[in-house]
């Protein structure tokens, strides 16, 4: 890691551990995960449902519902401030201000009984000294920035009067209103129509560039990753299993799970291709986090697993320059799957 990169770092997460206490026992939703985000950079976090992507994001925001969850270890440093040591009042000054979050469900993430304008105004007035008139003007300006037509009128409307795409735009406007250093987008396009997905994604990336915001994009869609991210981390069963620059990852995935994910991406059927080609899948299921195998959590589904995989958890190792993978056999895996 070069010095220049360190200076630019806005978020540094080290050895983050988040556990949930449930009736069926304790499980480690996020287990020893480290990553960092630079100014203006997009970091994608990829993985299947339940792999700990969202909990990682909520841990960074310190919004993990407690009980049952709790961040039990590691450090989260945003612009030099150790977030995990702040008290709740200090943390509130950071949320929505220096760091904000967009959620997966635009249909349910906005308060149905508050006008769109009021919901954006609220975040501005919480963090900035503004009269309500100034804040409203700023809210309308934010709606214009996210390319909502007729922002003056839309600000007066309630969430149910807006389409899903519009609502997600409003969420983005709200999240970016205070010009945060870091934006976390948790599957921001998953719940939207395919045609809208691309627009929203383009909007997020565009605004991120203009405003110089660091972006953590959580997704299970590798297509989205390829379009937007500079760096990618792949998570499986609460652990980071691979991290690389996006080109490296696509050209040379080093973890069998990453390779499995790529192989199971549906390719656009081109003329002449076999139309009855079956989609690849990763056999088996994500293991229950309360009952993980002693070795590599992916071993039961991995065609390359050897005895060592089942006995010992492979440490995260640098396999190439700035390319990390947690697999005993990473060195043997070369080229695209």
């Amino acid at each position, binding site marked *: 890691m070069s010095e220049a990169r360190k200076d630019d770092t806005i978020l540094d997460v080290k050895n983050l551990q988040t556990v949930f206490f449930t009736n069926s026992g304790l499980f480690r939703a996020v287990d020893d995960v480290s990553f960092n985000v630079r100014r203006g950079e997009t970091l994608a976090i990829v993985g299947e449902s339940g792999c700990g992507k969202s909990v990682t994001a909520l841990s960074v925001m310190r*919004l993990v519902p407690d009980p049952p969850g709790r961040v039990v270890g590691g450090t989260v440093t945003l612009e030099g401030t150790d977030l995990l040591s702040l008290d709740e009042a200090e943390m509130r000054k950071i949320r929505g201000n220096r760091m904000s979050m967009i959620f997966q469900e635009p249909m349910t993430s906005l308060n149905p009984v508050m006008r769109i304008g009021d919901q954006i105004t609220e975040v501005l007035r*919480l963090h900035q000294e503004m009269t309500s008139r100034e804040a409203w003007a700023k809210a309308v300006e934010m709606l214009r920035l996210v390319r909502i037509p007729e922002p003056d009128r839309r600000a007066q409307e309630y969430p149910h009067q807006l389409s899903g795409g519009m609502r997600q735009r409003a969420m983005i406007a709200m999240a970016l209103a205070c010009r945060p250093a870091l934006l976390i987008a948790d599957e921001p396009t998953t719940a939207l129509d395919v045609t809208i997905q691309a627009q929203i994604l383009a909007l997020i990336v565009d605004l991120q560039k203009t405003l110089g915001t660091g972006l953590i994009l959580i997704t299970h869609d590798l297509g989205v990753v390829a379009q937007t991210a500079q760096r990618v981390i792949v998570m499986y069963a609460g652990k980071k299993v691979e991290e690389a620059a996006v080109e490296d990852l696509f050209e040379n995935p080093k973890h069998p799970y990453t390779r499995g994910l790529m192989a199971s991406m549906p390719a656009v059927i081109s003329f002449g291709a076999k139309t009855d080609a079956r989609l690849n899948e990763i056999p088996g299921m994500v293991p229950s986090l309360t009952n993980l195998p002693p070795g590599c959590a992916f071993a039961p589904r991995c065609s390359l697993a050897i005895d060592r995989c089942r006995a010992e958890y492979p440490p995260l190792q640098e396999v190439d320059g700035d390319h990390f993978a947690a697999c005993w056999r990473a060195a043997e895996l070369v080229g695209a799957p």
Partner: protein
Amino acid sequence: MFAYIVRRLALMLVTLIGISIIIFVLLRVVPGNIVDILFDAAGFVDPTDKANLEKELGLNLPIYQQYLNWIGGLLHGDLGYSYVSEKPALQEILPRIPITARLAALALLFSASIGIPLGVLSAVHQGSKLDYTLRVVSLSGLSLPSFWLGLLILMASVSLFGTMPIYNPNPKTWTEAFAIYAVPAMAVGFRSAALTMRITRSSMLEILRQDYIRTARAKGASETSVNYRHALKNAILPVITVIGIEAAFLIGGLIVTETVFNIPGVARFLVEALRWRDYPIVQNLVMLIAVVVVVANFTVDMLYAAIDPRIRYGD
């Protein structure tokens, strides 16, 4: 919206006509009228005297004729004469209304101002000692009949202060007015407060799980703002419904409470009139209660639209 209100008002009118027929018929289905009761007490029956009295009171007319007379009178503001006091029914009923209205309003105010904040508190601290304590107290509120609670309050007041609040139409001091109205209002409102608390709690628990609550936290909103500004406004609809229904149930509670505390309100008067089969008083009072209930329901529906922008009454 305007068309909706007009239609709603028309429907209210139909409901009230229906209610008036039911009241009227039910009253006359109950065996014995005032004449029977009077003559039974005398222990001697002269059929001609009885027939004369029935004729005087108009009880010999066919039932539909009696009904039309009543409704016709109502439309002219003539409620008839009380059989017992022989004064115009309006004069008997009117002065009693403010007493009961004051009690009912205080009871509702009490139940909302106690029930809603405690319900929020209970939901926010779900599973805590506070939550369990509040739930037990509210369960007791639902199980204690208001007349028994009223008696307990009276006994406590006697043993603590050596006296108990006695109704006085013109209370001299603020404390006297409080003792006269607020204490019975609390006795009758305790049940509503308990119910309001439980509904608020369960509604809040539902809302606190919603995504937009997480969004509010992600904005940096304080817990107070999250609970009251974001959650309560969404959770309040079922609470309003319950308070609206309680407003109607309150009359039942007031009948016993007015009796226990010896307050000359409408509710106690209704029971007395019923004992004498004082038709003009009973049917007009029940009609009044029906109007209150129908108007309360209408108000609740209008409040829905005012609070939740997704609810619009069209066409």
